[in-house]
């Protein structure tokens, strides 16, 4: 769904209004965004649930709650997407659905939290990824609740206060789901390498706390141009710059990571982790630049932000989530028969994703330049000038979709085959 509506959305940029007669952009955008967010959330939860069971050696504590959780999420997500088709909204950006849908989502998340905490059983001397899962699940609950504070008139009756809290919740919420995903990726790397020393090390925990610190306090870099409290922006700027530590660490460990890559590249799930590593470097570099207020003003409100988001959600989150999926189907006989399809699909993703992101970044810089001109042409004239970049964006996006489908299809077939064998 996310891929289909992403393609339709891209076509709207090339031919604005092309689908207005049957499905206009205010429906296409949330259909794409919500589908992708639901993919990220469900796969992240699935990763945590699978890996936690492997880690503890025991099944999930309350399987009935798990079924209810799954049912609630599945039905709610489907209902939301259907409601979009009928033009039923009421929420905010990224959570455009009618606010009543938040109730089952929150309920299902609480069930997930109960299951995760009770399945850990022993909280002593746990590796960093368990800390990340537990933190992430609580942090998401808080920030998701916070993102619904606008229901209360006090929070929404002044736009700057409203947007401050909105972007505070959004920034931290992404940090929360990243805790789940990065935690699972650390578990998976331990599993692939057969060495869990890192996950218990002081360094791992320092990096975890640095990530959490950023998730909690750097969200203000989304709102540098909002006329809100100055201290929010100063805190965000200072905290965001601590991510340079992570950036420097990636550069420092670059040679070692190549050695590790050579050892494990034959493993399909590792291929996705390596791809995510590269995208973490690229996206982190861009994010740090965007977090400098004086640079942010050139990129804020432009397609550079979209490029960063795509780089993060596809290049990092989706690559890691696909790594988790492929770990679960590793060794499946069905998967063997799709080896060439996987290889071609994976290559297409690595070729087209950089072009896709770059086309957005270039379009964004052109818009940013336009934004700062004393004499500005009309908005429509500026958008027309970006058309060549939107064409590249659409073509590379199509290539990316084909690549993703070529890795998703074998995974679905393998999962279904494994499921029928288990039954």
């Amino acid at each position, binding site marked *: 769904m996310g891929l289909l509506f992403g393609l339709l959305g891209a076509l*709207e940029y090339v031919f*604005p*209004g092309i689908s*207005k007669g049957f499905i206009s*952009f*205010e429906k296409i*955008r*949330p259909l794409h965004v919500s589908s992708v967010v639901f993919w990220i959330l469900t796969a992240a939860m699935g990763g945590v649930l699978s890996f936690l069971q492997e880690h503890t050696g025991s099944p999930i504590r309350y399987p009935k709650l798990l079924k209810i959780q799954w049912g609630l999420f599945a039905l709610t997500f489907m209902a939301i997407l259907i409601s979009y088709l009928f033009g039923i*909204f*009421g*929420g*905010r*950006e990224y959570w*455009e659905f009618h606010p009543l849908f938040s109730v089952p989502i929150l309920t299902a998340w609480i069930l997930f939290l109960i299951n995760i905490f009770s399945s850990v059983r022993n*909280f*002593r*001397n746990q590796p960093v990824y368990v*800390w990340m899962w537990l*933190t992430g699940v609580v942090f998401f609950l808080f920030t998701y609740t*916070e993102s619904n504070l606008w229901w209360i008139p*006090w*929070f*929404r*009756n*002044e*736009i*700057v*206060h409203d*947007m*401050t*809290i909105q*972007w*505070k919740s959004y920034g931290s919420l992404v940090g929360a789901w990243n805790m789940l995903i990065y935690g699972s990726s650390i578990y998976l790397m331990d599993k692939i390498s057969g060495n869990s020393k890192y996950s218990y090390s*002081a360094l791992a925990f320092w990096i975890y*706390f640095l990530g*959490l*610190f950023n998730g909690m*306090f750097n969200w203000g870099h*989304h*709102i*540098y*141009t*909002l*006329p809100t*409290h100055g201290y*929010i*922006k100063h805190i965000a700027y200072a905290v965001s710059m601590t991510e340079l530590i992570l950036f420097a660490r990636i550069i420092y460990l670059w040679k070692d990571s190549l050695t590790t890559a050579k050892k494990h590249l034959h493993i399909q799930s590792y291929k996705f982790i390596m791809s995510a590593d590269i995208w973490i470097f690229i996206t982190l570099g861009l994010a740090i630049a965007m977090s*400098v*207020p*004086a640079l*942010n*003003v*050139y990129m*804020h*409100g*432009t397609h550079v932000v*979209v490029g960063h988001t795509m780089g993060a959600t596809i290049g990092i989150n989706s690559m890691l989530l696909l790594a988790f999926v492929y770990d679960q189907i590793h060794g499946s006989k069905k998967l063997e028969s799709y080896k060439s399809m996987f290889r071609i699909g994976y290559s297409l993703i690595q070729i087209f994703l950089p072009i896709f992101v770059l086309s957005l970044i270039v379009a964004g810089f052109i818009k940013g330049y336009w*934004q*700062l001109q004393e004499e500005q042409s009309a*908005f429509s004239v500026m958008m027309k000038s970006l058309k060549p970049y939107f064409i590249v964006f659409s073509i590379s996006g199509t290539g990316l979709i084909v690549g993703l489908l070529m890795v998703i299809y074998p995974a679905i077939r393998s999962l279904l085959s494994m499921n029928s064998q288990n039954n």
Partner: protein
Amino acid sequence: MKTDQYKLWTLGLLSLAFLGYSFQLYVSPPAEKPKEGKEASLADEGKLLWQEKNCTSCHQFYGLGGHLGPDLTNVSSNRAPEYIEAFLKNGTDVMPNFNLSQHQVNALMEFLAEVDKSGQSDPRTFKLNLDGTLSK
């Protein structure tokens, strides 16, 4: 174990700082809240309508939102009311006609006027400082 204690203390301190920061922001709005009355109520109606029609999928306030349409933060001071009403009542080649009633149009206009009063979103109004910060 002692190391678990250090980790718990660190997590606890971070969490407390975060909660304190959060509640501080909840109770200290950056600008004066609008006084209750007919206009405020109409603006609130306009805001909820803005969400119902999902205008943010194409439009931005303070650079935050969709990219298919222009930023509308200060459209109330930059354009005449008739100009804005024309868009709201008819749509364009790209923007749908939402078949809004006159009351709904008035509510959205009131909401946009409130947003306009909150500040200036034009990035040309910012001054870049050497330390990387921005000022007005």
